[in-house]
């Protein structure tokens, strides 16, 4: 629980995760000094901020002891609804409403998830999975029913490529603000205390007079909103929205949260750890695609597609790091 008390108090997992980031960068720098250039690091921070925004909501849900598997199509829904906004509301209103409308779609998904998990007491894993299928169905219907508008509005583009503060890309700034708010909520408000407490034992929190079901719904709504906002940013980055744009984000999101030391059964974890996990995953993917270890293996006579090595290293790093700090106690 110490990690919950102070945002700057480091726990073991966060320290190890940041240590691994430094190690990765050092190894990368041995290969190519450009890995330590400010340009490269800022670029990685920008890439990480998309995952960071999405992982913020996921972390809250995991802290509760639940999981949200609906984020792939919530991301796609956020992006696609934001770009379709002009089609729905006309040019003037649609352009202004694009971003809020995208996030609103995510809020709705989160609301249904929350009601299913909190009030119907359905296991979150399967309920959110069903919601993912429904969101996918809605998007397939949306694109199949009539020709969709998939171009982003200038504001969405600016949201991603612009620099409100010189030198810092907007998504990084957004992630920073979102992170500060999250840390504040988790450590300084009763909602934050309730989130940690529910993750430890919901029954006890209920008995102490907290409306635990409302807390669950709020967190699922935040998670849906974060995923949809991530989708809005991603479509701004790609300059368009498309189906399946969220698919590559489910596993990295869960991995980032868990690598950052958040207990997958809930109740423990710090936001700083999640930040470390997000940066670690992003760096790992980037360095593996730059270094291209398949050529070293090819010299040894082993022909491997680059994706193979990326996937295997990804899996081994997760298991390896969890073995260091994610083990459970022995049954007693």
């Amino acid at each position, binding site marked *: 629980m110490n990690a919950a008390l102070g945002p700057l108090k480091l726990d073991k997992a966060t320290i190890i995760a940041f240590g691994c980031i430094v190690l990765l960068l050092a190894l990368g720098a041995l290969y190519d000094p450009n890995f330590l250039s400010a340009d490269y690091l800022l670029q990685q921070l920008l890439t990480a901020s998309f995952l960071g925004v999405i992982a913020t909501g996921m972390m809250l849900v995991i802290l509760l002891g639940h999981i949200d598997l609906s984020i792939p199509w919530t991301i796609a829904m956020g992006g696609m609804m934001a770009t379709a906004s002009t089609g729905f509301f006309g040019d003037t209103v649609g352009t202004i409403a694009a971003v809020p409308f995208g996030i609103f779609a995510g809020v709705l998904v989160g609301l249904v998830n929350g009601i299913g998990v909190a009030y119907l007491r*359905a296991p979150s894993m399967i309920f959110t999975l069903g919601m993912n*299928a429904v969101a996918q169905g809605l998007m397939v219907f949306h694109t199949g029913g009539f020709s969709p508008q998939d171009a982003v509005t200038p504001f969405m583009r600016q949201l991603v490529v612009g620099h409100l503060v010189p030198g810092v890309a907007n998504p990084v700034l957004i992630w920073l603000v979102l992170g500060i708010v999250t840390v504040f909520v988790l450590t300084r408000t009763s909602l934050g205390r309730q989130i940690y407490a529910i993750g430890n034992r919901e029954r006890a929190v209920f*008995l102490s007079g907290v409306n635990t079901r409302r807390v669950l719904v709020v967190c699922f709504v935040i998670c849906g909103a974060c995923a949809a906002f991530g989708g809005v940013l991603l479509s701004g980055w790609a300059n368009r929205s498309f189906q399946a744009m969220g698919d590559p984000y489910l596993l990295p999101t869960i991995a980032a949260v868990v690598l950052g030391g958040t207990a997958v059964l809930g109740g423990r974890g710090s936001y700083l750890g999640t930040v470390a996990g997000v940066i670690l995953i992003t760096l790992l993917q980037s360095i593996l695609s730059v270094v291209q270890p398949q050529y070293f293996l090819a010299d040894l006579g082993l022909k491997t597609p680059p994706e193979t090595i990326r996937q295997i290293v990804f899996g081994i790093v*997760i298991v390896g790091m969890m073995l260091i700090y994610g083990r459970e106690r022995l049954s007693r």
Partner: protein
Amino acid sequence: MTASTETAPASRRSWEGWGHRLGAQRGLLIAAAIFILMFAYYGYMQPVGLSSNVINTAANKGVLLALVAMAQTLPVLTGGIDLSVGTIFVLTNCLASNIVHGDPLMTALGIIGVLVAGSLCGAVNGLIVVYGRLQPIIVTIATSAVYFGLALWLRPQPGGSVNPEFADLMTRSTYWVPSSIILIVVVVLVVWLPFRRSVIGRAAYAVGSSEQAAYMSGVAIGRAKFTAYTLAGLLSSIAGLSLTALTYTGEARAALSADYTLNSIAAVVIGGTSLFGGSGSAIGSIFGAFVMRTVGDLLFVLDMNPVLQPLFVGIVLLFAVSLGSLRLLRIKNKLDLYR
């Protein structure tokens, strides 16, 4: 029941025994009933009726998911989950497209190789879960990345081949009985029932309902979990083998593995197995899988707008999950709602 209370105690006891047994199998029976109703309607809507061809196609498609869902059931029974069943399925499909061909001896060795490979993947999951003491969901997310990498290595591009005689044997239908149905019956008889009746199988159920209590009663927790994950790998590899026989190729497609992993969880739930562990059966999951597949077939014969189909499947899934909430109506003490 009212009649039995009047009669001799012995017959009353046997009645209660039956009632209890049926109660324990309620999920399975409901899934089976839904499947039979749906499939009968599907056959009725078919212009050609339930020809042996129609049955064979449906069986071949359904058995793949049924095997993966059986695989998913075992870890779920122990209170865990296996998110790598879909990737083991794809990995063994890629492996089979490489090694299951040639003369009968080579083919047989290839089949054994595929099954061993699948079991090894499952065993790795089990070892990390038991000795690493990590959460199964994280372990299997990580290992599924590794297995998918290996599948890509075996099959960077779709292709490969399989012994055509073996493929035909696996997918044909003899006297209206599809080979795939025989396969699943054999798997139930050779893998599931012996496991269910063994000490380890009971231990798996015990661990799933309360690990603490199981530990206190001296149940071999580690062995139960390890066996569950290993058998899950084996069953997934049988599915991978069947897929190769059906398509004659291997393909490392991420969407395919994700689809099977997710649908396997849905099939397990529809089949009456609790995601919290400790109750349910792999036979229920078979019917759950067939229900999932028949929904898609039904939408097809009902001429539903194709763009609406994914939405409808999702709604059916949500509805099936929400049905479980009916139990909330019976809860008298509000405290029982919470963990």
